C-alpha cells in the first residue's frame, strides 16, 4: 500500500474538470474530497475523478463519489471515474457500485464520454 501523502488537485483536460486524488481516502479526509468533487461542478463542464493514485478507499470516500454522481445527474453534467486503482475497483465491486459509475481509462476520455 502506498505511503503517499493525501493530495487533491484539480485541472482542466480537454474540456473537462479533473479532480485528481492521491493517497488513502478515509474518514479523516473524505469531507475534503467530497467538497473538491462537488466544487468541480461549478465550471459547468463534465467532471472526472482520477483514482489511479488511490491506494485505499472506504465507504465515506465512496459516499463522496456517489454524491458527485447524484449532483452530475441533477445538473445534467457528465460525471466519470478515471482509471480507478485495483484497490478502489475492489471496493466498488464489493459495494455493487462498479456498474453504477461511468468508468473511463484516461482523463482525456471524460470530456468525450457519452
Amino acid at each position: 500500500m502506498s505511503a503517499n501523502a493525501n493530495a487533491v488537485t484539480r485541472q482542466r483536460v480537454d474540456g473537462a474538470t479533473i479532480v485528481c486524488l492521491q493517497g488513502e481516502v478515509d474518514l479523516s479526509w473524505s469531507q475534503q474530497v467530497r467538497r473538491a468533487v462537488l466544487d468541480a461542478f461549478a465550471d459547468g463542464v463534465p467532471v472526472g475523478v482520477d483514482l489511479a493514485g488511490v491506494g485505499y478507499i472506504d465507504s465515506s470516500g465512496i459516499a463522496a463519489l456517489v454524491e458527485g454522481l447524484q449532483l452530475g445527474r441533477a445538473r445534467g453534467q457528465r460525471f466519470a471515474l478515471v482509471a480507478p486503482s485495483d484497490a478502489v475497483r475492489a471496493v466498488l465491486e464489493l459495494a455493487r457500485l462498479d456498474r453504477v459509475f461511468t468508468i473511463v481509462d484516461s482523463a482525456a476520455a471524460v470530456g468525450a464520454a457519452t
Partner: protein
Amino acid sequence: MNSPQPERIATAVVEPRRRDTGALVFLADLSRSLAVSLDLRQTLTQAITRVRDFLEVEGIALFLLDPASQVLECQVSAGPIDVTGMRLAVGQGIVGQALAQDATQIVADAGSDARVWRGSDEASGFVTRSLVCAPLRTAAGPIGVIEIVNRRDGAPFTAADAELLELVAAPAALAINNARMAGELLEQQRLKRELDLARHLQKSLLPRRRRDGFPVLGVNRPAHEMSGDFYDYFELTDGSIGFLIGDISGKGLDAALLMMRAASLLRWIGKERLAPAAWLARANEELCDSAREGRFVCAVVGYCDRAARHVRFASAGFPPVLVHSGGQYRQYLADGPPLGIVREAQFTEHALALDGGTLYAFSDGATDVRGSDGKPIGMAGLLALIQRHAQATPKARLRSLLGELRRLHLVDDTTFLLIEAAQVERPQLLFSDRMPARADAMRGLRTQLRAAFDREALEPRLRDELVLAVDEACTNVIRHGYGPACEGPLEVRATRCAAMLTLEIIDEAPAIDPATFKPGTLGECRCGGLGIALIDRIMDDWHIEPAETGRGNRLVLRKHIEAWASEEAEES
C-alpha cells in the same frame, strides 16, 4: 489428384517405368494409413507389402533400433525370405551402416561390394544382387532402417530408387516415432497414477490428529513425492499412549516401501506393551531378516500417560530427543544402533518426568534444513526456532516450526513428534491494539492490520477486505458512537481459533441498541448504511453486544478462512 503439379514432381524423382503409377498419390495414401494407424505393427506389415509392389522389388524389410542394446532388429519383412527377427549390430552390413552414418546406402552390385554382410544369403540360399537401405529419420536421430532388395526387372538400383525409398521412409519414421512417444506417455501416466496411489496409501498410515486432550502430536512433510519418515501413536487398554517416530535411510520407492513395513511392524510390537528397549530389539531382529542391503531404520519408540507427566522411550540411531522442561533444554542421544543392521543389538530406556514440559523428536530433515548461508541449521538453529515459538500452543507451535523450516530450504523429509500435556485449544492472538477513536488513527491501524494478516499468509484481496471491514466498524464508532464532540478509546483485536478469524472492536461509548445497527440498502447509499453493508458482505456473521466491562460496546466480526481450513485438514 490429377493436377499437373504432382506429375512434375514424380517425373523428377521416378524413372520412366514408374511414372504412370502416380508416386505422389501412393505416398500420400501411405502416409495417411500410417498416421491414422491404431495397430502400427499390422499397418506396417501391410504398408511394406504395398511398398514392395509399388517399387517393384523382390524383398523389403524394416529394422528398428533398440536404444538400450543398440541392436537393429527386423520388425516386418515381405519377400521370398522372411527375415523378421534378424538382428544386426549398428554398423553391421549395409543396414547397420545406413543407421550408423544416418545416410542412404546404394549397392548396385552386391556380389562385388565388400560392405555387404553375406550371413543371411548363406543361410537362406537367396541371392542378393542389388540393395538400397534408407535410415528412418527423426529429430532425435535415426530410429531404424528400411531395406529393399533386388529390382524385379533385374536391373541394379539407381539413385532414383534410393530417392523414392527415402520418400517412403519419412512417413514411416514419423508414424513409428509417434507411436513410441504415445506409448511412453501412457507408461509415464501409469507410473504417476501408481505413485499417487502409493503416496495416498503412505499418508493414510499416519494417525489422524486427536482433538480430545491428546498429548501427542505429529507432522510430516515429505521433501519429494514419497516419504521415508513416519510417526504413529495409539492408546493402550490401560489408558497409556504408545508413540513412535522413524526415518528410513535413503530415498525413493524402495525406502518408502520399507517405511510402510517398518511403521506397521513397530506399531504392532508397541501394542504388545513391551518395554521400549525390548520393543526396539524385537523390531531389529525382524528388520535384520527382511531389510534390503544398505537400508536401515532409525526410530524412537516409547510410552507416556495421557496427562504427559511421565514419558519413557528408547532410541535406535535417531537424532537426539529434545526435552524442554523447567526452562531447560536437554538432549537424549540415541544409545542403540539403527534397526536392521546388526542382530542382538541392545537399546537403553530413558524414563523421565515431563512435569508440564515438552518432548520433541524430529527426523534429521529438521536440522538438515539449509539456513540463509546455505549450511544446515543444525541442532542450535532448530533450538532457536523452537525457543522462538515456545509460547504458542503445541499445534500452533508445530505449524510455525514447519512454516519456518519450509521458508528455509527443506532438503529431506521432515517429521516432528511432540508430547506435551494438552491444553484447551485457546484462540491465537494475531493482533491487538488500543488507540484513540479518531479518524486520523485509522491509517496506522490499517497498516498494522495488513501486516498481521500478511503474517498469516492471507491472500491480498481477502486481507484488504478484512482491513476495510475493521476500518468501517471503527469509523462507525468514531462517527456515531462517541459523537462529534467527545473522543474515547478504541480497542481492536484479531484472533484465530482453528479456521475461524474473529475481529473485535471494543469502545467505551454509550450502549448501542443492536436493533438500530443494521445494513442500509445499497441503493440509497446512506453513508453509515453503506459501511455496515460492506461489513455484512465481507464477513460471515457479526453482532454487537455490551462490552464485558459493562461500559461500551463490543462489535464482533467473524469469518471462516478457507486457506486455514485446508491447512488444518492437511495437518490432521
